């Protein structure tokens, strides 16, 4: 009996009139948890009843505490007939189960009815007394923190990042049970809401158990999804990244972290805060104090040699600082071997994170994805959901092998999704193959900290672009060049990833949202035949989506995609593909070539003319886009005199002096000759159509930018105004014109118009950027296409940008001369600094001895499978993209070095940004954002995960304003309920908010509609930076403060 739940019902307000005669209501409340129910007194004849109930106490297992929601039902008392329900409130008490989060839930909750929507509010107070239970065989996992945020939460430090956790639970869908025929829609909806609430509680508990097993204490990047499989059941599944997090408080917390954290976790597995004394609340430590490593239990326990690819490449080595580079040679092979052995040890080296601590990500291989079409069958035994588990395991295996083929041992930015139509289900998984820092693979010991310091010496902004695979033994034909930044390593000519742009990446100009949209007709078919038809179509869709993405990327004059998300949805008679990503120009990658159009019949004169006309249009568009997104890759960096960023210039000179003496310059110049353009062949009307559609994408109006990543590359001076929104559109296709082209055009128009509408609606916020633009497409019925967009508009200050650049430059100049402390942000400064200034000089020896201890036996290393055998297993589409990529013309940049753009969150920026007007700081306002941060503010506390599921149904659709009125009201209600829950937890914002599902069904003939919405996010408390300012200036480490905050914004 390890928990006591206490609930008090205080009052109600704005209740609906339930008694027509008196225009009043006799309300009372039922409080239910598990199988226990309490009732309040009836408050006669009042629309604003005051119950002021006693404390209702429930004595329950912590297992139940995790699984069950608290269910509060408001009813109207009726002496003669049955009591009428007014509505319900479900409260997830999970946030009360770990000590750091909320201690009490108290506030006004909207009373929700699945038929009538919100009907008044109720004031409730909930508390939990939890007794510690050290039973090792327990089934609960109280205390494991969950975060939707796909990066290390702001006020935490990752001690260990353990890795992938997944779980799924299945059940019968109440909507499809026999009883549904006789019960009311309300009862059915409530049964469903309750079941899903219960299932997600159970799922969370089970995941928590896995985390505890791995000796972690938190799940980051937690993504929970529902699969409404109809007849065959209801699947709730979740993935996440298990971590051991440590609350950041003051810089003093740095030292204890260097003790063996894993040991600590063993000793105090249930205590959230191993060092409560050292962690006082206050401004957080700079990120540079963080250590990241894998737990010994599940990690790639492999030898961590001091010879790292990147280290040996840094100018530092060239300068002869002598701290690294002992075995500069065959480490790639070694790396592969290590990778191999590591893979054998770990089931799925996946990470749901999309942003990482600096130095964590070494190389990025590219996007890996896998899809599989399955026929749904009834889940016979819900307790053993083996089939679903097996399906996902299969897909994950495939992803893993794709990653291997790319020479990567891990997959980051990993996500999974499904699309279901009737009994066919497409399972998709995608991620970015990556090489993570091998030195993070050991214990988070003292060495870890040292490594962390060393890690800062990597070449900023290009390391992750370097290919992880062997250039002589490439998994697919790709065109490689020397890195335009460091000129040492090979880079691909384009890079696709599912992660956010790394903080330290060097970007030229601004980014933009790039979308590929595609429809394909499919014959209506049943079961197996249907599945086969879909499987046959999939590869073509993937191919076309990628072609479109590549074309659009070229058209924008950019060379990399971040946050790539490809969604393939299945409907009865068509398949839809929607890919969204943020295009950027990475300085390290070569300049993309143009697009050349080639006609099939060159003899025809007018045709020729037409082609050349198109060619001109395309060239113009590219030029215009380059101007629009400020993509001006420097031709000769030395000639840029009076550059606003002198500090990087200084660095570049340093690099230059070095590279001039090497052979690489010549090598690179040679590559100039090959100007093979990216050729688009127009051989039929389809291709013509494609080219046309390329040109129809209109850029956003001036003052607007959009991206689907967390932050917009190239914009850094955010002001505090944010507006999160959801927009839904459904179009009905006329069945007459159902050709692929017409479909494509309709779909394209739908998306473009939607974007245009957004720009128009938000015009008052200009200049602003739509961030985290998340499109989802579904095919609810035969001729219906539904597109749902959730995004946040953030204002930024145009004028400040200039100042920022200036101050940033000034600041960095000062720093370059005086300050050795800023290793984090300007790592290369270390080269010019003398090494003794390094706080931990005896690095290498110490490290090696440590690593050999923890390393695996040499024999095992030797037996590892040769990497190249995996090459042919590489998925077809990776090959396809890269094949495409191969034909891209080499760029025209002559120098290897590029002027580094101010890092998106430099100190100066921060300083300028830090005093925004807090216009909206009214009490009671709850901000919502899909981002993990709030511009101009600092998150001080995470209160717990918000994961809510609602059903709304109506039998009076016309009276509620038709489908639009119905859904508009429902979404507004969902927002309201999320805000109310956050406010009741004591929070003032939801970050990493996501609307995971919005299933809308209508039956206008019957005047009915139904909608299911699932949302989640992290409830937080934030403080405006202007309010923090006073505190931070008093800090002795004031210098570090901005760096910390800067990292905070982007990680």
């Amino acid at each position: 009996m390890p928990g006591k739940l206490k609930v008090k019902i205080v009052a109600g307000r704005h209740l609906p009139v339930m008694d027509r005669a008196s225009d009043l209501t006799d309300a009372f409340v039922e409080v239910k948890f598990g199988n226990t129910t309490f009732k309040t007194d009836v408050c006669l004849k009042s629309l604003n009843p005051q119950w002021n109930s006693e404390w209702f106490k429930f004595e329950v297992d912590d297992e139940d505490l995790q699984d069950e929601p608290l269910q509060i039902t408001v009813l109207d008392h009726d002496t003669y007939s049955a009591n009428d329900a007014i509505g319900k409130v479900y409260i997830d008490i999970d946030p009360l189960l770990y000590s750091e989060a909320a201690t009490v839930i108290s506030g006004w909750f909207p009373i929700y009815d699945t038929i009538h929507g919100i009907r008044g509010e109720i004031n409730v107070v909930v508390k939990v007394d939890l007794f510690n239970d050290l039973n090792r065989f327990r089934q609960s996992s109280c205390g494991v923190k969950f975060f939707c945020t796909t990066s290390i939460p702001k006020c935490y430090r990752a001690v260990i990042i353990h890795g992938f956790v997944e779980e799924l639970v299945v059940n019968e869908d109440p909507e499809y049970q026999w009883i549904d025929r006789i019960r009311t829609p309300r009862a059915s909806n409530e049964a469903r809401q309750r079941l899903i609430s219960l299932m997600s509680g159970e799922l969370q508990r089970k995941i928590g158990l896995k985390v505890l097993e791995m000796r972690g204490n938190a799940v980051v990047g937690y993504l929970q999804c529902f699969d409404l499989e109809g007849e065959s059941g209801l699947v709730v599944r979740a993935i996440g990244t298990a971590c051991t997090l440590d609350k950041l408080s003051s810089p003093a917390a740095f030292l204890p972290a260097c003790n063996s954290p894993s040991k600590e976790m063993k000793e105090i597995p249930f205590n959230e805060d191993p060092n409560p004394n050292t962690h006082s609340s206050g401004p957080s430590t700079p990120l540079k104090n963080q250590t990241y490593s894998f737990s010994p239990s599940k990690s790639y326990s492999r030898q961590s040699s001091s010879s790292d690819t990147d280290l040996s490449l840094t100018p530092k080595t060239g300068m002869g600082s002598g701290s690294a580079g002992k075995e500069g040679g065959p480490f790639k092979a070694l790396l592969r071997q290590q990778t191999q052995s590591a893979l054998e040890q770990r089931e799925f080296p996946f990470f749901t994170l999309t942003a990482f601590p600096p130095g964590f990500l070494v190389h990025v291989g590219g996007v890996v994805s896998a899809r599989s079409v399955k026929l749904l069958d009834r889940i016979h035994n819900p307790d053993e959901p083996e089939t679903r588990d097996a399906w996902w395991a299969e897909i994950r295996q495939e992803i893993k092998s794709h990653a291997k083929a790319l020479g990567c041992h891990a997959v980051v930015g990993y996500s999974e999704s499904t699309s279901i139509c009737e009994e066919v289900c497409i399972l998709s998984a995608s991620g970015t193959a990556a090489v993570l820092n091998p030195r993070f693979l050991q214990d988070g010991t003292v060495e870890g900290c040292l490594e962390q310091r060393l890690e800062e010496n990597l070449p900023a902004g290009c390391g992750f672009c370097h290919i992880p695979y062997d250039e002589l033994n490439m998994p697919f034909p790709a065109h490689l060049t020397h890195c335009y930044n460091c000129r040492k390593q090979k880079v691909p000519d384009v890079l696709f990833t599912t992660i956010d742009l790394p903080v330290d990446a060097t970007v030229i100009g601004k980014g933009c949202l790039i979308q590929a949209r595609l429809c394909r007709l499919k014959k209506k078919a049943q079961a197996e035949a249907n599945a086969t038809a879909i499987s046959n179509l999939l590869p073509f869709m993937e191919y076309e989506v990628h072609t479109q993405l590549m074309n659009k990327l070229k058209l924008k004059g950019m060379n990399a995609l971040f946050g790539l998300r490809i969604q393939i949805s299945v409907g009865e008679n068509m398949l839809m593909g929607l890919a969204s990503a943020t295009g950027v120009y990475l300085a390290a990658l070569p300049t993309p070539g143009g697009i050349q159009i080639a006609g099939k019949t060159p003899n025809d004169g007018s045709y020729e003319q037409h082609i050349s006309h198109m060619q001109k249009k395309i060239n113009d568009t590219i030029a215009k886009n380059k101007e629009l997104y400020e993509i001006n890759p420097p031709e000769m960096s030395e000639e840029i005199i009076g550059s606003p960023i002198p500090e990087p210039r200084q660095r570049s000179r340093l690099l230059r002096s070095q590279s001039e003496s090497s052979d690489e310059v010549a090598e690179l110049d040679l590559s100039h000759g090959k100007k093979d353009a990216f050729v688009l062949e127009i051989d039929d009307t389809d291709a013509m159509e494609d080219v046309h559609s390329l040109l129809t994408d209109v850029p956003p109006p001036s003052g607007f930018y959009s991206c689907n990543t967390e932050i917009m590359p190239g914009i850094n001076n955010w002001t505090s105004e944010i507006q999160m929104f959801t927009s839904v559109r459904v179009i009905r296709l006329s069945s007459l014109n159902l050709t692929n082209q017409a479909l494509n055009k309709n779909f394209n128009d739908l998306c473009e118009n939607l974007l245009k509408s957004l720009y128009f609606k938000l015009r008052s916020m200009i200049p602003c950027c739509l961030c985290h633009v998340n499109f989802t497409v579904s095919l609810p019925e035969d001729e219906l296409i539904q597109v749902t967009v959730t995004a946040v508009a953030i204002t930024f200050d145009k004028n400040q940008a200039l100042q920022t650049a200036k101050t940033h430059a000034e600041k960095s100049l000062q720093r370059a001369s005086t300050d050795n402390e800023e290793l984090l942000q300007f790592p290369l400064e270390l080269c010019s600094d003398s090494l003794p200034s390094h706080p931990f000089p005896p690095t290498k020896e110490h490290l090696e001895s440590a690593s050999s201890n923890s390393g695996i036996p040499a024999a095992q290393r030797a037996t590892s499978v040769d990497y190249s055998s995996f090459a042919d297993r590489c998925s077809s589409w990776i090959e396809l993209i890269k094949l495409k990529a191969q034909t891209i013309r080499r760029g025209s940049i002559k120098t290897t070095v590029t002027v580094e753009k101010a890092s998106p969150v430099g100190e100066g920026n921060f300083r300028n940004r830090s005093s925004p007007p807090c216009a909206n700081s009214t009490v009671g306002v709850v901000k919502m954002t899909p981002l993990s941060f709030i511009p101009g503010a600092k998150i001080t506390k995470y209160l717990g995960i918000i994961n809510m599921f609602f059903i709304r149904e109506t039998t009076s659709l016309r009276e509620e304003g038709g489908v639009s009125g119905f859904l508009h009201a429902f979404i507004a209600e969902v927002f309201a309920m999320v805000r109310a829950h956050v406010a009741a937890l004591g929070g003032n914002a939801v970050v990493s908010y996501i609307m995971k599902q919005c299933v809308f069904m209508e039956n206008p003939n019957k005047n009915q509609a139904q909608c299911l919405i699932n949302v989640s996010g992290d409830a937080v408390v934030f403080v405006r930076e202007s309010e923090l300012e006073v505190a931070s200036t008093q800090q002795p480490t004031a210098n570090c403060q901005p760096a910390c905050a800067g990292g905070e914004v982007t990680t």
Partner: protein
Amino acid sequence: MTSELDIFVGNTTLIDEDVYRLWLDGYSVSDAVALRVRSGILEQTGATAAVLQSDTMDHYRTFHMLERLLHAPPKLLHQLIFQIPPSRQALLIERYYAFDEAFVREVLGKKLSKGTKKDLDDISTKTGITLKSCRRQFDNFKRVFKVVEEMRGSLVDNIQQHFLLSDRLARDYAAIVFFANNRFETGKKKLQYLSFGDFAFCAELMIQNWTLGAVGEAPTDPDSQVDDMDMDLDKEFLQDLKELKVLVADKDLLDLHKSLVCTALRGKLGVFSEMEANFKNLSRGLVNVAAKLTHTKDVRDLFVDLVEKFIEPCRSDHWPLNDVRLFLNQYSASVHSLDGFRFACSGCVT
């Protein structure tokens, strides 16, 4: 390709002031779109008509949902569904309760009943205000009337408290409620030259001076029926006004009053001779109007009578406004010095 569903929901509810105005003015979505197109917004923003249509629909839907809350403004403040910054909330309420001068003149003093509501068609055609907007304004009047009708205390305060209106707007509503309650006739042709502001001014003075609350005779007996302290005229006071008859009935008193006024105003009035000549008529007119006020019918005709009996004679003699004011002040001041007359104020007109 037809759009089945098209919505936009922001965490902070977007309010477009221009669209709000169009909605309040009762334009249909298509009319509103046409008007917006004419305003040149498409050129400014580079948007298409379809975008404008969708945007307008969205806003209309939002306003439609907000309307229920606007009927009880405190609800708007406490509701959780729409997150609206306080300044915007105030704007929504203020604009919603704002009314057209032309409209209010039509219904001022009329009973706020279903019958009047039926006449809104005519008012709409007459004033050029859309029927929808007329209905909104009429319903606002009626709603405010219903809420404050039975309340004690200051009319303006009550309105402000329950409808969260600005001071100015609350005062206007107080006047409307006061007029509706007392059913003062304001629609006669003779009264057409008077603006709402004129009546509102009168209403304020009357509330201040003629009502139960004003007389300061708050009933000590809580069970007494006098609830509408600011809305009903003080019957006792009206009864007392009958005593004024003596001013014109008693010849001596009339002469004395006249001489007092004339002495005081000699040389100060541009129309002194006319005043002196007409004093008896004017005084009789005023006193008769006052004395008749015990009859409900005559209360309703108060303004008509005042115009007929006092203002028109003055106007025919081309009295300047200032002279009228001086005369009336002196007229009432002199009464005090006559004998035990209680202070009796006459409504100052224009």
